């Protein structure tokens, strides 16, 4: 028995790449389009919310646009609209490619995709008309959650079938992250919804559940998929295998184990049992283990060779995402020191960390993945390289402005709150931090410019695929030529 037939026991059944791509093309492109549209929506809402912080009268006279509703709308549109749609696209594509197996009938996945997006819209509408549950990232009313749960079941099942169809038993590190995230989210969602919305947890146990769930949507769903994408694209674009691959499994398990408790640190100082607070803070420090391992994998691979055939746009986003992951891990340690969080807890710093996790790391990695795989699916290069460049630089500038200004605002806010003699009135405190928020407003505008470029590029790419029939040479698709990522 030679090695080929051991890895692929029945070589005659191996599907070719064109067949695999055809099985996932429609739902993946739909997810990418829906994600980009949600991202623009979320950023517009985030922009409105930040303007309201600087100019409280802005859109304040309507019950539907009051600040307390715009903020959860922006957050839910970003996570369940952009984050999940993009994660589905990345996950389906990554699974089909790495498992070398076609997806089941794409029409079924598309139905799931449509209903997921209807569910998110219903949920946001529910928040607007006053049915918010009031719990972080569980704000959407239960009737929307039920729809989302069923849709996730359909989408998730079609991804699970890809895994079941694979012929090779061995799994690459990206597949561990993808497979685990695929199952983690529905379990989390079930726990969150059943305990908070239908159930009867009383008292501050609700707050513990809300931060646990809210953080785990990042730590056990978005982050694993983003890490999987980096583990996949980095070696492909560098042209070298992952450095220190044997350690990757330690990184995977230790990340999941410690990150899942990280959310509890948001309750340090709150009226919850002391050991809960200590667990959260310790978990943030123990995150050093996965940070070192994953950082070694990422940075080692980056330094091991020059990019294969020039640097495509995907690599820039992926590298930024990888560094943002490491930077977020270090920042969260600083904000977990008791002397520091006495100032920074319950300030804009928590929003800065959300943007660091959701935007600087997860979103930038998803951008990289989308720039990598869409041309390979449509068999055409991206319509405009200039739009990609604009997107990259405005994202980098925007995310640095947003995170930086929120951290500074939070520190100014926390210091003023704790200094009663100098700032006896709350209006004095607001005067201390509101200046920084002007930079946050500008940051959101900068992000929006790039996202519009991204959306336009996607719309043209989808239009060209659907209507302009240019026969591309299918052999171009593999091995992946980096020239496909830009308009040469």
């Amino acid at each position, binding site marked *: 028995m030679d090695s080929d037939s051991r890895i692929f026991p029945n070589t005659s059944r191996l599907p070719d790449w064109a067949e695999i791509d055809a099985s996932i093309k429609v739902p993946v492109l739909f997810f990418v389009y829906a994600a980009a549209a949600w991202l623009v929506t979320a950023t517009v809402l985030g922009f409105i919310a930040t303007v309201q*912080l600087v100019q*409280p009268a802005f859109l*304040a*006279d309507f019950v539907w646009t*009051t*600040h*307390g509703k715009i903020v959860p709308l922006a957050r839910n549109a970003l996570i369940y609209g952009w984050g999940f749609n993009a994660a589905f696209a990345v996950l389906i594509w990554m699974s089909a490619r790495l498992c070398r197996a076609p997806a089941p009938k794409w029409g079924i996945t598309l139905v799931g995709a449509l209903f997921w997006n209807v569910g998110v819209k219903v949920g946001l509408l529910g928040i607007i008309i006053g*049915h*918010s*549950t*009031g*719990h*972080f990232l569980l704000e959407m009313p239960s009737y929307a959650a039920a729809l989302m749960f069923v849709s996730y079941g359909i989408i998730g099942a079609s991804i699970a079938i890809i*895994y079941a169809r694979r012929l090779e*038993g*061995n*799994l690459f590190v990206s597949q*561990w992250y993808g497979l*685990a995230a695929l*199952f983690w989210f529905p*379990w989390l969602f079930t*726990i969150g919804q059943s305990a908070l919305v239908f159930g009867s947890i*009383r*008292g*501050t*146990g*609700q*707050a*513990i559940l809300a931060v*646990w769930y809210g953080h*785990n949507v990042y730590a056990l769903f978005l982050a694993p998929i983003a890490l999987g994408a980096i583990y996949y694209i980095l070696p492909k674009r560098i042209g070298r295998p992952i450095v220190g691959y044997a350690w990757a499994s330690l990184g995977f*398990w230790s990340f*999941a*184990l410690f990150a*899942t*408790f990280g959310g509890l640190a*948001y309750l340090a*100082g*709150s*009226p*919850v*049992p002391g050991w809960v607070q200590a*667990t959260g803070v310790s978990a943030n420090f123990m995150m050093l283990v996965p940070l070192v391992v994953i950082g070694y994998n990422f940075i080692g691979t980056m330094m091991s060779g020059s990019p294969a055939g020039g640097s495509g746009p995907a690599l820039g986003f992926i590298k930024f995402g990888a560094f943002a992951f490491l930077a977020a891990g270090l920042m969260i340690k600083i904000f977990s020191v*008791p002397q520091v969080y*006495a100032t920074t807890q*319950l300030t*804009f710093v*928590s929003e800065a960390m959300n943007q660091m996790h959701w935007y600087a790391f997860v979103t930038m990695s998803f951008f990289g993945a989308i720039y990598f795989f869409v041309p390979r699916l449509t068999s055409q290069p991206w319509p405009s390289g200039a739009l990609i460049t604009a997107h990259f630089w405005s994202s980098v500038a925007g995310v640095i402005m947003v995170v930086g200004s929120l951290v500074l605002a939070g520190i100014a*806010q*926390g210091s003023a*709150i*704790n*200094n*009663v003699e100098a700032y006896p*009135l*709350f*209006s*004095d405190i*607001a005067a201390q931090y*509101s200046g920084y928020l002007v930079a946050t407003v500008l940051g959101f505008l900068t992000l929006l410019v790039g996202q519009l470029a991204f959306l336009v590029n996607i719309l043209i790419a989808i239009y060209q695929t659907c209507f302009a029939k240019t026969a591309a040479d299918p052999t171009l698709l593999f091995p992946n030529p980096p020239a496909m990522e830009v308009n040469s």
Partner: protein
Amino acid sequence: MNRGPYIFLGAFALLAFSWTAAILANQLGYGTLTAHYDPLEGTSFPAPQPGIVARGAKVYTELGCAVCHTQQVRRADLGGDLARGWGERASVARDYLREETVQLGYNRVGPDLRNVGSRYESAEDFYALLYAPEQALPGSNMPAYRFLFEEKKILGERSAEALDVDAPAGYQVVPTERARSLAAYLNYLHDTYAYPETLYVYPEEESADEEVTAEEGQ
């Protein structure tokens, strides 16, 4: 080797562990905490919520007040909450038992509201704050909640609840039912009762504070 089942089982075990530790352990640990009945006062603490207060809590949740306001007073060693007069003592878990939706909050764009009921006298104070925060508190960055009020024609006498603000001739500004509930809820918010477990959450004695200040001054 097919590692799929190991990843699946490992992922399941990990989430089960996380849930057991973070959620189940707390539910078993203090999920059965009950209100404290004080025979001398003839009532239990935290005080039961009248219907209008419970409705006001729903308005608080719907409007997303928790986006900008926390409801938790932290210990004296973790910031200036007590020095600021946001409470007589730090909050404890039992304070929240009567809340249908616990809204601890995560950002203090505005002041903490856990004891706001003891800082203002009456519902009228809250109406003034909600209708025109700029006038009630100069420099405030809170948006006005005009949609919680309505202009009504004065029929006969002016309503006792009418706000002392400019209105067209013959009209008055009166709170809606939602504003009444919200004000009742805010007025209800004060944790002053000393439970057995609150022994250690009061700020240090005045004299101790003075000693520290004197030492620092030298």
